[in-house]
Structures are given as C-alpha cells and as structure tokens.
C-alpha cells in the first residue's frame, strides 16, 4: 500500500486549535496530514487546492470554524460557497471530488478533528495515488 500525502489547511482560530486540543488529550491519528496554518478558511482559493494536487498531494482537507463562529465573522461563508463549486469542477475535469474534504472543527473538538483525519486518510488511501489518476 502506498502512503498518501495529504495537505490540511486549518484556520488559525478554531481548527488549528482543535488539532492542538486533540494533541493535549493525546488522541492518536495517522501522520499523513501536513497541517498548514492559515488565518481563515476563507483565505484558501480554489487555485491553492489545485496547486496542492499539482505539487504531489493525494488529498486536501480544509477545516474552518463552524458557521457563525468564524473569527472574521463571515470568512467561512465564502469557503462554504466556493468549495462545493470547486468539487463539481474537479469532478468535471476527472479528479475524484472525494480528494477534497471540507468540514468545520471548533477549538474544543479534538475528538471530531481526530475522527475527521482518520476517516479522510482512509478515504484517500483507498484511492490510487493522484499522479496515477492523472496519467
């Protein structure tokens, strides 16, 4: 089995802290996800997601604050609107839309963070490496 490479974009205020919470509780999850801290989930453009695939990622996970809790009030509203469109576009261009996953994780939700990471790592492991799909 190959070891998938996953890029995780986490907003600084909720989800990154949620990942810290998981750590403080010593919860375990697979090491495949490389977390990139960004101010808000709204910072991530569709372009950056696609770029991650181009640079070798097999999956991209984007986590932000729950709707209504965004540190910047409505930054994540944009995420919620733009990412489903990107998934459609990925499907259209032949990239499995499951390779991109969006969810909301609060600073308190260490457990949810762990579950989400485990499940997403499994999903991506079940897919062939991204480079092969693109051949």
């Amino acid at each position, binding site marked *: 089995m190959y*070891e998938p490479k996953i890029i995780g974009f986490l907003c600084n205020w909720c989800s990154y802290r949620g*990942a810290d919470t*998981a750590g403080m509780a010593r919860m375990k999850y697979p090491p495949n996800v490389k977390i*990139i*801290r960004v*101010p808000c989930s709204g*910072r991530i453009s569709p372009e*950056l997601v696609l770029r991650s695939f181009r640079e*070798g990622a097999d999956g991209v996970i984007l986590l932000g604050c729950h709707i209504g809790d965004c540190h910047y009030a409505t*930054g994540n509203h944009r995420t919620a609107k733009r990412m489903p469109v990107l998934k459609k576009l990925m499907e259209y261009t032949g990239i499995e839309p499951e390779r991109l996953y969006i969810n909301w994780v609060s600073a308190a939700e260490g457990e949810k963070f762990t579950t989400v990471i485990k499940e997403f790592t499994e999903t991506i492991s079940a897919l062939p490496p991204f480079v092969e799909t693109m051949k």
Partner: protein
Amino acid sequence: MKSKKKPQERVGVYICHCGSNIAGVVNVEDVSTWAGKELEKEGVVVARDYKFMCSSLGQELIEKDIKEQGLTRVVVAACSPHLHEPTFRNACSRAGVNPYLFEMTNIREQDSWVTTDKLEATKKAKSLVSAAVGRVVYQKPLESLFVPIDPNVLVVGGGVTGIQAALEIANSGQHVYLVEREPSIGGHMAQFDKTFPTLDCSACILTPKMFDAGNHKNITMLTWSEVEKVEGYIGNFTVTIRKRARFIEESLCTGCGVCWEKCPKKVVDDVFEAGLGYRKAVYTPFPQAVPKYPVIDHENCTYFQKGTCKACEKFCPTGAIKFDQQDEILTVKVGNIILATGYDLFDARKIPNYGYGRLPNVFTSLEFERMTNAAGPTMGKVVLRDGVTQPKSVAVIHCVGSRDKNYHNYCSSICCMQSLKFAHLVKEKTGGDVYQFYIDMRTPGKSYDEFYQKIIHEGVNMIRGKVAEIIEGEGGLIVQAEDTLVGKQRRIPVDMVILSAGLESRADAKEVAQKFGISCSADDWFIERHPKLDPVATMTDGVFVAGACQGPKDIPASVAQGAAAAARVLSIIGQGEIEIEAATAMVDEITCVGCKQCVASCPYQAIQFLEEKGKAYVQEALCKGCGTCVGTCLPKSITLKHFTDEQIVAEMIGAMRVMKSFEMTEVA
C-alpha cells in the same frame, strides 16, 4: 513561483525536546542533524536541538546565533505557536531580526502527542521542519502600523445603557456625542413606574442621571437625531449625523409647555405611551424629558398638513417656534463608538390566539407599565380599556413570543421578573385575583428569587403551562391552558389579560449593524467579540455594544455593560495610539480587473473601490488579515502579507519533499 529564484537566506533551525514531551517520541537529534545536512541547500546554516527552547537559555541560543552566524531567518520546531510564537518573535526582535522572519512549527501537539510510532513521528517532524524552512525564506519583514486615537467618543442610543456609558466617559474628562433618535433620552426605563426586584421608582433613579447627562460640559447631546454615515476606523471615525428639525429654536425655548397646552391636535402616542395615551402634535414625550425642548411632529401638525393653525407660535412667550427650521447635517470626528440602541417589544399581534388588538382587554406589558405609572394615561389606575372599570381578576401570560419555535427560540430573560412585578402591582392597586401562566420560572439574579417568594406569599395563583388561547366568554375573557403540574386543561375566567411580550432586536438592527460594520446573530442581536471573555467589544475595532441591543437583559446588566464599554474605550484612549494588524491584504492595481468581488467578500468592509481608477483598494487600518478577499480574487491580484501564495506553496512543497524522499527509501 518556479520561475523566480529562491532567495538566499541564512536559516537557523532549533528543535525543542520539551523535556521528554517531544524527545520521548521524536528522535530530535536525528531531526537536527538531518536538517543541517539535507536542508543546507534550502539555506539552513545552523541546526540544533535543545532541552527547552522557550527557556531563557534556549532563547539566548537563538539570539547568539543570529549575531554570530549572521542568521536572517529562524525556525523553531516545538509546541503550538499559540503558546510560544510571541516568545520567539521577541527573541528574534531583540537580536535584530524582524519578528515576521520567524516561523514556528508544531511538533508536540500535532506530532509527538498524536503519533504512536516513533519512526513515523520523527519522519513527520522532518516534514514539518522542511515545510517551515521552505516557507521562512519567502517571508518578508513587516512593520506594525500605529494610529493615533481621537479622544472623542460617539454613543448611539440614550437609554439607561447609553446614559451610563456617556456619563462614565464624560466624567473622566473626555468628550461624548450622545445621539438619540427620540425627542428625549431615557429609553424604555423612562416608561416604567416601578422596577424589579426592589420596586423602587424608575423615574426617581433615572431622572437624575438623565439630568446629569443633559447638563454635562463634556456631553454634546443630539436628540431627535440619527447617524447617517460612518467612515474610517478605530481612532479615526468620521460620523455624519442628521439632526432633524424640531421646529423649535433651542436657544430661545424655556420648556414652559405653553405650546403643547395650546396645540389643538391630539395624537395617539405609539412610542412613549405604547398606544395607550395621547400627546399633542407639539410635544415632549414625558414631563421630565431631557432636553426640555419639544418637537413638532410634522406629519400630524395641522399647520404643516393644512397650512393654518400656528397656535403654538401665537402663544409661545419667547418666539421659539420656527416653522422654517431645516434638518442639520453634522460631521463629527471620534475615535471610538458605543452602540446602545436597546430593543423592541415583540408584536403580540403575531399570535392571533391571544387576541391582542382584537380583544380590548388584552394588554401588552408596556401598556401595563404605562397604566401603572402615576404620570401615565390612567394616572396610575389599573382599569379596563373603557378607562373606568377596575378588573377583579387579571391573568399575566409569560413567554409571549419567547421560547417558542414559531417566534423566538430564546428566553427574553426579564419577563418572569417583570410579570411578578405586575402581579404585585395589580394586587397592590386593585386587590384582585392574579393568575400567572408560566412555562418555567426563571429568577436567577441577585435578590430575584427572594422577590419571587415574596410575590407568592402575596397570594398570586401560579399555573404552570403554556396558554393555548384567550377567548371571550362569561362576561370577560377566558384563558385556556394545560396545567402541566396537575395534567389538566384549565379555563380561567378573568377581566384582564397582560401579555408579557418578549424582547426582540430593533426592527432596523441589521441596517444599523451594517452602518457601523458589525454583525448580527440569527435573531439580529449585535454580536460581541467573545461571548464570555469580550462581551462588549465587537469584531470591528473601536466599535462596542452594550445593553439590550446585544441581547435581552435587565437594567442592572445593561448598566454594567454601559460602564464596561466606557472602560474599554477609556483604556484605548489612554494608550494614545493603537497598533493595528501588520499582516494585511494589498491589491495589485496592475492586474486588478475591477470586478469588485473582493469588496463584497470582505467581512470588514475594508476594501474600497476607487471608481476613478476602476480598481480595488484595501484600507490597511480596517483590514484584519483574514484573506477572504484573496481566496475570492480570480486574477490573483490580492496578496495577504505573511500568507502569500508563494509562502503557502513553498510550505506545502517543503512538507511533501520529505514525504517523497521517505517513500523512496522505503521502496529501496
């Protein structure tokens, strides 16, 4: 990115053991040796591991290397940046490296504590260090911007909250503009007779405060006025205020009252008297109004509508009536703003089963407040709609429009106490029977439950159950409800019903929020920055909220918030200037196509559209650095400093570089 040459930097990498927290799982020596060797071509010139990087010795290690080895970039792999990023940024600063040229990566909370396999954990640490090194060479020095604070303050809303806030600030020696849309300050509290739980007279405690605010040398009171426009940012707001024409020359008016005595036009007073009483076309809402000057209600004035009358003008002893007065537009500069715009009462007509508006002897809570007020339309007598008959029995219905999924899910927090107050007042004034229909009794305030016990002992009938319907019958009204304590339907005949309607956000709350650049909750209450730790600040620096505009609350809580908001503002004024976010967004005017997508996406209205140029422009002092605009801009014309595409892509390449090489060693 590939086209550009990688910057030549001298990077120092520091791996923390954190005692055994990290070193117990991650092979830290291996990581630092590896970084020194494998990342040399990325710019790493020093790589060390150390027991506790955050200790003063650890920090000195960095400072020494910066000076002796000429480091231009620093990476620390340790705990969460939420804990020690500031520590290391300061260390860099002290040694002459700009704090934004430092990068921290988290190998404790997000590696050693969550990874079981030691080899895997070590590999992940290398990947994280490589990512941080990849990114750090693209980081740019940033300087914080400082803006001076204008010490003047705007308070919007002159209810008890706004009055409190204005007085606190004015007493400290700063100047306040207090803007109130009604002819007088006072808000809802001025309408009440008695206040729970002490039953002290509302006017007796409020009037002195109103008077102080009205006469304070540091308060410019603008009543019958409204804020039209707000521009700028913390420290530097420019506010446009419309002072509506009162048609009274304030400098001449003595408030003698001859005009409203002589005015022949009677108007139902929907605001102050809650529709229960009348006022004239020229009026002050109540005798203790501050300021004392009346206003002429243009829509109802016979002269304005029909062209003749001018009774007030004829009788005014000082010649203060000015029918040709115009609205005035004022522009004021302030550094901070406090919103204290209060609440509206839920419109009980929305629940047809309760018959308000159709059954004459169903009253709202505010009508009842006016009725019991000695200065009110019935001069304090509790009577039916006919104005003379005293009711023998009264039902008070709790939670009207509150805790009801058809109207408002929330609890209005004051209605239980206010209903108990009504029970007491009915008993005191009529001696009649009182029935309270409640869902749950909520009396969690200082001396509140004691008040509840006292009212029960006064002989009030408590029925636990939601009222289904109020109908006419048996010569009066019949209240139907399921008594959930005995599990029976009850039909209670009464003469009068009082609906304790809930509090709701002001009808124009959304508009006001937008004007001041703040947000509203689903129920349109203004949203505070943090529900527990920052209850009066908002996400917009320099704009504060206090009192019932932030959510239902009683007078003590409103006053406390008014004072709290004042304290926050005074602490900002005391600083003289304020540091604002350095990692802000920037538009590249050359590539911007002028689509305005970013303008709409910014949660802070920080992006201006320069019509003449057809380009977007970020007002740095308003930008909070979220990057939402960057994610929106199709031609990639916006850059968010410290989170540029270049930096993020370098970070991901750095991370995956390691993952790849490991895959290869495994294959081999």
